[in-house]
């Protein structure tokens, strides 16, 4: 189970609204390479992990992704907060307002709603961990696209933190894959 801690994993304090950037960042909330997909992917795959280390790492990275989901949601909220509908119209982000107002909804930047089709969970841990390695790289690439689209230090700082975490998770999943391969090799279990 989980308990809530009344804090984000890393500070999110954006002073200047930027609705266009809010919509761009929204894809990391409910898009194909976003934090919701990441969390559900790892928390679902953990049930088929074969060793104590790999059960732990899938459980704990899946949990950290929920904290990242909260950071992204906070960024979208703060970037959209109190911006007038007229302003949204001027910036051409009024179609999102027509559907959701200024709410945080799990979709990508084009408004395509979240779907579990973004993830896979198989009984085979080698297949799962290879998917996870690719997922971390796709998320890293997305954060790099986002970083190219803003010059606001309040936005850059948490995005850089999140990008760096993808790199660390990639490293840990690589170690998990090695552990599974070594264990399966020993057991002569194909």
């Amino acid at each position, binding site marked *: 189970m989980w*308990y809530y801690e009344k804090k984000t994993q890393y500070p*999110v304090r954006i002073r200047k609204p930027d609705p266009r950037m809010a919509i761009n960042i929204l894809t990391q909330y409910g898009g194909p390479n976003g934090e919701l997909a990441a969390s559900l992917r790892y928390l679902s795959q953990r049930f088929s992990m074969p060793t104590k280390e790999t059960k*732990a*790492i899938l459980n704990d990275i899946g949990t950290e992704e929920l904290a990242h989901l909260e950071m992204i949601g906070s960024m979208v909220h*703060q970037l959209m907060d109190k911006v007038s509908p007229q302003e949204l119209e001027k910036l051409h982000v009024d179609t999102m307002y027509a559907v959701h107002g200024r709410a945080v909804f799990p979709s990508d930047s084009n408004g395509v709603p979240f779907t579990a089709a973004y993830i896979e969970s198989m009984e085979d841990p080698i297949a799962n961990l290879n998917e996870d390695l690719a997922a971390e790289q796709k998320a890293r690439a997305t954060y790099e696209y986002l970083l190219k689209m803003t010059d606001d230090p309040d936005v850059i700082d948490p995005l850089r933190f999140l990008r760096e975490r993808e790199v660390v998770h990639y490293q*840990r999943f690589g170690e998990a894959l090695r552990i599974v391969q070594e264990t399966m090799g020993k057991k002569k279990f194909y």
Partner: protein
Amino acid sequence: MDERTNLLEQIMAYDFVLYDLQLFLDTHPSDGNALRDYKMALEQSENLRRQYQAKYGPLTTRYLPNTTCWQWVNDPWPWNKEA
């Protein structure tokens, strides 16, 4: 930055160290150095957490201040700009 935010961010920094070490220890469970670092950061975090919660209210519902109302509902929540 006000005093409350400053203290909260110190806790967040130690808790981040703890979480990063936790992931490392998951794949290196017999690394004595990482385990020692974890123990040190845990002591720091718990110490700061005690100070914070006594002064500014609960970070989790496991901390119950000696008051007649449920302080958990109080603002700010982490996604608020003022948090």
